[in-house]
């Protein structure tokens, strides 16, 4: 399924997915700006402050009541790293008008745009009390990064691999940055984003395309959106290969050790993205992957062992939770899998089976409005224009030698291990 794409006024891209099978409409907006040390924390605060009050609904309770009145419209935000960019994502999901016989779509579009473009202001800036509070809550969220140990280990490894690159920044930002933030600084950053972000609006619904487009255009007449100058980085983050592998061992109170290997792909521009994604699938996505079969099934060192290719970077990670004493064994087994990929020790079953898995993952995107939207938003940010069907076709035609070539370009960068305090 392909989204219709339109460039509308003010440098905004509108994507529309007409669908008849889902029960809900999804409206989303992606604001993409460069990922920078000086603005990473501020940008995380923006959706938080917007959720606190709008001109129409001045506090979070009033906002929530208005959303509940739309048959429980779910409004969500996130701020994610994507290559050299930071993407501020906003979503609203509502039940389709045709099911509940009500004009929910337009009302939810009003609420949605109100939440993004019409924040509650006092003396021309964000309310001081809200800013102070959201700073405090973000501080706690950053401190909580140690809570989920596997996730912590994963992020720490990325931080080590991307030490010199902005992609290594912690996705929620830094506590020290918060000290000097006040309502004026935050409001300036908000205005800066509206003026300079790449803006993608993606909508999925069963309504007529022209009607939806008109609904959006009629409402996007905000002064701030005039004469926009888009600044973002479609180019991928690139980490240079190193000959000095880093070994990082940290301690927290854990029962199980969390092991993450950070790998980089040398001269990634030489490879097709789908070759890399297939390699990643052969290595560690499903139960026919090398990591699952050897780390879990054969050596029973772990319950899970997976790999992840970080899109729009040249970083590949392997992660698993193991008994602390199994550290050496686990590394040997994982390295053996990487080595086997490089040597071309990939069976026909592994190769074709992994192709099937990867194609299934792409095909099933068409069964979820959120995944379809997310796919095309990413395409837009990467400045590429490959449909899901084209991607499937490319995967189907990948040759074994392409995967081996990618494997040969993989270099181990960092081994990160989180173990219990005082363990040997």
């Amino acid at each position, binding site marked *: 399924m392909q989204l219709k794409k339109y460039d509308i006024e003010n440098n905004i891209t509108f994507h529309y997915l007409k669908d*008849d*099978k*889902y*029960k*809900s409409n999804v409206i989303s907006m992606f604001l993409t700006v460069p990922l920078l040390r000086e603005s990473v924390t501020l940008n995380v605060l923006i959706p938080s402050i917007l959720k606190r009050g709008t001109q129409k609904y001045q506090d*979070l*309770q009033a906002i*929530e*009541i208005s959303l*509940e*009145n*739309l*048959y*429980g419209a779910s409004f969500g935000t996130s701020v994610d790293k994507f290559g050299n960019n930071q993407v501020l994502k906003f979503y609203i999901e*509502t*039940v389709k008008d045709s*099911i*509940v016989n009500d004009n929910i779509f337009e009302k939810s579009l009003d609420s949605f745009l109100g939440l993004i473009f019409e924040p509650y202001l006092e003396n021309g800036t964000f309310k001081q009390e809200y800013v102070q*509070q959201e700073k405090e*809550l973000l501080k*706690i*969220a950053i*401190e*909580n990064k*140690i*809570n*989920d*140990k*596997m996730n912590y280990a994963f992020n720490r490894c990325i931080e080590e691999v991307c030490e010199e690159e902005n992609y290594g920044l912690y996705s929620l930002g830094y506590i020290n940055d918060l000290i000097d933030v006040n309502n004026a600084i935050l409001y300036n950053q908000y205005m800066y984003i509206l003026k300079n972000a790449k803006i993608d609006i993606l909508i999925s619904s069963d309504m007529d395309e022209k009607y939806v487009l008109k609904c959006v255009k009629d409402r996007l007449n905000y002064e701030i959106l005039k004469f926009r100058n888009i600044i973002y980085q479609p180019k991928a983050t690139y980490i240079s290969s190193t000959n000095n592998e880093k070994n990082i061992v940290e301690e*927290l*109170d*854990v*029962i*199980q050790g969390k092991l993450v290997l950070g790998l980089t792909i040398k001269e990634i521009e030489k490879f097709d993205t789908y070759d890399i994604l297939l390699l990643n699938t052969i290595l560690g996505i*499903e*139960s*026919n992957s090398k990591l699952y*079969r050897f780390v*879990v*099934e054969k050596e*029973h*060192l772990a*319950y899970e062992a997976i790999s992840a290719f970080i899109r729009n970077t040249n970083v590949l990670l392997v992660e698993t*939770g*193991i*008994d602390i004493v199994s550290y050496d064994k686990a590394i040997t087994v994982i390295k053996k899998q990487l080595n086997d990929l490089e040597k071309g020790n990939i069976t026909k*079953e592994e190769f*074709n*089976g*992994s192709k*099937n*898995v990867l*194609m*299934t993952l792409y*095909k*099933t995107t*068409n*069964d*979820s*409005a959120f995944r379809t939207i997310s796919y095309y938003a990413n395409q837009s940010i990467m400045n590429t224009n490959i449909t899901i069907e084209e991607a499937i076709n490319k995967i189907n035609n990948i040759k074994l030698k392409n995967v081996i070539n990618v494997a040969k370009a993989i270099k181990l960068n960092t081994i990160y291990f989180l173990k219990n305090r005082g363990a040997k």
Partner: protein
Amino acid sequence: MKILEDKIIKEKVYIHKYGNGLELLIIPKKGFINKLLMFGTRFGSIDNKFVINGEKVELPDGIAHFLEHKVFEEKDNSVVLAKLSALGALTNAYTTYDHTTYFFDTIDNYEECAKILFKCVQSPHFSEDGINNERDVITQELQMYNDDENSKVYMNLLESMYSNHPIRIDIGGTVDSVKNIDKDILYKCYNSFYNVSNMVVCVCGDVDIDETISFIGSLIPNKIQKVDLKKLSPVEPKKILQKKIVAKMDIHTPLLAIGFKDSNISLRNNDERIKYDISVQIVMDMLLGKSSNLYKELYYDNLLPGRLTLEYLYVKDVAYAIMQMSTTNPELVIEKLKNEMKSISFDENTFQRIRKTLYGEYIKEFNSISNIGMTVFADYMRGINTLDYSENYEKISFDDVKQVFNELFTEENMCVSIVEKKEK
């Protein structure tokens, strides 16, 4: 064949019962490309005492889950999971309190995948070596949860709330309890519970009803195996075992789970259970949902920096409501909740609005093949038809909700579990 229908959201569930006792649920979803197939048995972690053909059996903790892991192993030690993945199917299995299920979703090779899955569930092979290896994998799974603070706060709550009911035991058992699981006891469980007359199949996707009935029929034995099985229910007092439990972990912000023990579940028929479920959800939203006064107060006091979940869970003879959150001051939140429970006066407009919100959320569940399949399947296993929920949203009155509040949300039924930061 029984056909259940929800005319408003246009969904149907077809229920067919074969001569050998197997039940088949078909949920046709036009336009979706993915197909989900689930094959499960009414055997979960709480079924730990039973009488089979006159013999009383008491099981080690975690055996239903252990058995789930072992069913995927075949005679030649090859593992079925990899075969299914290679065909492009995403396969998994899970064990709950009251059932175990094996499932895959796929676009291609649906029939071939179904044959493989049915064969492995109907003719597993257990060897001592295989069991020992799997024990290592399960131990790592349990240790992963032991490091997870959310799972800790939840499990501690159930352990404190219940004196005898096996719901107080982790579904996977403990690292020690799984040591007592051997080949004989696995076969005994398998032979007792994995009899088609105790099993249910669910197919969700764009499928033909008659073809599905005959295809699934061709994968199962015609003969009825006579098994005289009686599950034994524990006697659980109404009283909470221990009102409060505190654990310490290496985290930053504490976690709090507040439970309310519902001791009257066995007195309600299915319709009453559905109404009760919806009513409890409404009460919890009115008390502490995002639009409530209490939520606002806690948020303004920086007491709710993270996620808050409000959930009501019921299976055949056990039910509880649970409020789980990350909070900077658990004691203060408990105190404020207790005060709110004493002083709240419910407002009818709020009731109407929340009811509408929950109905909207129910409708949105029907957006994805796996959500629908898993919800309908899990409900069916506990004797409930999911589509019956729809009309019950309408039926619930303001008085019902007030009654549920007075009956369940008392200090007597309340139990709290806290995970605090461990000081180094």
